[in-house]
């Protein structure tokens, strides 16, 4: 009966007035300068040591190769190194600096680094108390006794959440670009970035490699981060429906995400772990051509796993929320 738009407006307004998004912006405003400063230190350091980035790259390749001949380094690490060496060599052969310091490279790197933990954390700041917050304060009683079907209320919350997830990513990219630009200059949009490395065991097949302008690469990275972030958002919404307290809801989600990132680093021999959502969050990894945490994972595989988790979370959220007895 009543249309969805006013409901979405309500939910958006509530998140805004709760100042959750301000917290997100504030965290970004504090952290980005910290990382920018660290990045600048590295750049200055490199400039002191090397006159030419090619020398620096060459040095890095030599370092990796030395590590490969060391006996104390585990085989798994060596595999990463071998692949990295081949990729760096590719950049060197094509005379492209993969680490050229500029604002766009920084934004790209920041989003890539933030996709597994930092962005999910920011998403949780908005998502975790969408439903549980209304239950713990009791406002759910007012909300659900209005003549609106429950599924519409939850859908409006989901739409508002999608909006804030998108805004969070946009803010991450824009703020990191603006802040990094102060130190590194605002260029770097058209810099070529190589993508399409195909990994077979420890060999890199570079036949499909092509250069894309960095702005396009940043766009892809942001898009993939959005997929990861939306999966987290859907799961957080589900937990928020199932759990009455906001604290419990945040802790549950954080535990799942952190467990995933730990597993990513140690589970290469446990193959079924690849179906866990939090092991699949690092989608940008595939673009850069890094080896997957567990063999058999690919971009398509990870996107599918995330989609299945997100859809399941939405189904659970809606079926529980529409039938649940609101006892308090």
């Amino acid at each position, binding site marked *: 009966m009543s249309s969805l738009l006013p409901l979405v407006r309500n939910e958006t307004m509530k998140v805004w007035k709760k100042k959750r998004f301000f917290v997100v912006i504030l965290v970004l405003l504090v952290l980005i300068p910290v990382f920018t400063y660290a990045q600048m230190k590295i750049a200055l350091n490199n400039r002191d040591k090397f006159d030419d980035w090619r020398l620096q790259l060459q040095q890095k390749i030599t370092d990796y190769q030395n590590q490969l001949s060391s006996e104390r380094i585990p085989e798994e690490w060596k595999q990463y190194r071998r692949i990295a060496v081949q990729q760096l060599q590719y950049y060197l052969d094509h005379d492209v600096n993969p680490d050229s310091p500029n604002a766009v490279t920084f934004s790209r790197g920041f989003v890539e680094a933030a996709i597994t933990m930092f962005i999910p954390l920011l998403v949780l700041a908005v998502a975790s108390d969408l439903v549980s917050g209304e239950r713990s304060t009791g406002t759910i009683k*007012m909300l659900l006794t*209005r003549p609106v079907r429950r599924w519409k209320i939850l859908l409006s919350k989901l739409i508002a959440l999608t909006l804030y997830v998108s805004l969070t990513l946009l803010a991450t990219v824009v703020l990191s670009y603006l802040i990094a630009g102060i130190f590194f200059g605002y260029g770097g949009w058209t810099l070529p970035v190589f993508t399409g490395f195909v990994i077979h065991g420890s060999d890199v097949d570079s036949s499909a490699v092509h250069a894309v302008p960095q702005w396009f690469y940043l766009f892809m990275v942001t898009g993939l981060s959005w997929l990861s972030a939306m999966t987290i958002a859907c799961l957080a919404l589900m937990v928020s429906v199932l759990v009455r307290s906001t604290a419990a809801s945040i802790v549950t989600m954080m535990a799942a995400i952190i467990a995933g990132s730990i597993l990513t680093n140690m589970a290469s021999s446990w193959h079924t772990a690849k179906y866990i959502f939090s092991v699949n969050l690092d989608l940008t990894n595939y673009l850069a051509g890094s080896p997957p945490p567990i063999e058999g994972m690919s971009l398509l595989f990870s996107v599918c796993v995330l989609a299945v988790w997100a859809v399941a979370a939405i189904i659970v959220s809606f079926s529980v929320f529409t039938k649940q007895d609101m006892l308090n």
Partner: protein
Amino acid sequence: MAFAAKQPIGSNVAAPVDSGISSSEVVLSVQAVTKKIRGRSIIRGISFDIGAGEIFGFLGPNGSGKTTTIRMLVDLIRPTSGEIYICGHQVQREPEEALRHVGCIVENPEMYSYLTGWENLEHFARMQEGIDAARIAEVVEIVGMDNRIHDKVKTYSLGMRQRLGIAQALLGRPKLLILDEPTNGLDPKGIKELREFIRTLAEQGMSLFISSHLLSEIQLMCDRVAIISKGELLAVGSVEELLSQRGAYVIWQFDNREAGVRILRELEHVSIVPEQEQHIDESVLALLPGAVITSMPQERIADTVERLTRSGIGITAVQKVAPTLEELFITMTEGDVVE
């Protein structure tokens, strides 16, 4: 700040009707509703109807199932069996149609504390069609909150939150207003104002469902009451009906108490009520030292007085005392409170 009860509540409400139930349409109908939670019966089959313009009191001690019942009325909880109709619409099957006729406060009036009162009302106005800013301003005036409405709710006192809750409940021009313990957090003056306000709403045709454990409140403002205990309705009826079920007491005072009691004992139509069965306000008894409490038909008072006088017994006072609802309630729910 006072409830500006003289204001018309809304153009949509039905024309004023008599507050009796027989003549009016049924606004709320509860039919054989039960609720089990984790195998425990919380509500064991309750039924009652509320007519238009009626003030219906819902009495019960804490834990008797009052709030569970209210939650079922407004679709927060699904009954295990039985049906609830509001204005002819089954609440669980057609929540949108049924709930548009209801305004309610379940337990405390919990509003978004980080929004202002006005923003809260706007929020709830958007959830229902046909409520514009003018209507919001109207309900704000009705509950007399004009000067604080743009402050954040977290700065409000409990009394003000109660008013804001009522404003929210009135927004959609409901036919049924459900108030759960509405006198909580109000001072005696506020309670008196609320009582008058509720009367005015009922006069304009709105039905009110008011739960309370404060029986004196219900007694003063309700036309009919239902008494619930352990999930069952003990009685439903008009306040007078319920009180007359119990019968009034006749209290005697004599110059010679023993002689008076002796005569009364001889009379068949008089029974002296033993102390443990008396349900009379203790403050009333305190003013009547040596009173003999009896239960007898009122029409026999005159000849009983004559009989006593003939026997040379000096009667210093005879009076009729109605048991209060509270006393009635204690009789009916005996044991429940101790649990």
